């Protein structure tokens, strides 16, 4: 939201990942480097298991896999495991922002709206309204 232009306080970073093994292996290596661990009682490697993800979605009604740092001031990183996007199409539509010397990929405004439209949370409804007000 903030990188797209809406000032909105959040305590989390949401990630949409390609859930293939190669990409998840790379992601797990980064989580180890950053010291991120699941806040739920499962091994982080289970993120790679499609059956485990399906079970979390269907039995626990989970939409995000939460990762936390040992530093209590660090933000939670939520990996979205249930969302309406076709990853390849959304990745092709991504927007790029330069943060200092780092290129950061963010979801397009249309995809952010798709992610937030059906959640049932009031803050997501307001996010959609603000995203629609952004000037192209």
């Amino acid at each position, binding site marked *: 939201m903030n*990188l797209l232009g809406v000032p909105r306080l959040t305590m989390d970073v949401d990630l949409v990942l390609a859930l293939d093994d190669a990409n998840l292996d790379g992601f797990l290596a980064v989580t180890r480097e950053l010291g991120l661990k699941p*806040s*739920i009682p499962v091994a982080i490697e289970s993120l790679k298991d499609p059956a485990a993800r399906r079970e979390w979605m269907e039995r626990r009604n989970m939409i995000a896999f*939460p990762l936390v740092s040992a530093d209590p*001031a660090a933000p939670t990183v939520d990996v979205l495991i249930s969302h309406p996007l076709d990853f390849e199409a959304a990745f092709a539509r991504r927007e790029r922002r330069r943060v200092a010397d780092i290129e950061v990929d963010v979801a397009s405004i249309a995809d952010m709206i798709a992610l937030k439209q059906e959640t049932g949370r009031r803050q997501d409804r*307001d996010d959609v309204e603000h995203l629609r007000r952004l000037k192209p």
Partner: protein
Amino acid sequence: MNDGARPAAAAAQGGFGYWVSEEQLAAFGRLSALDRLRWLDEARRFTLLAETPATRERRARLRRGETIAL
């Protein structure tokens, strides 16, 4: 669920609402990406500094799309 996992929100409308004026949107739009993230991180850290167990629980409830009305 109290382990930080974000569930799909319940059918009842919960969470929190907010509104940003056109002027605020325009001013924020003029900031660099780095300054936008600095603003966010400062606000986030301030919120954590001021947090109590009760406000932490309320924040968790709102994040899950629940209400905090008594």
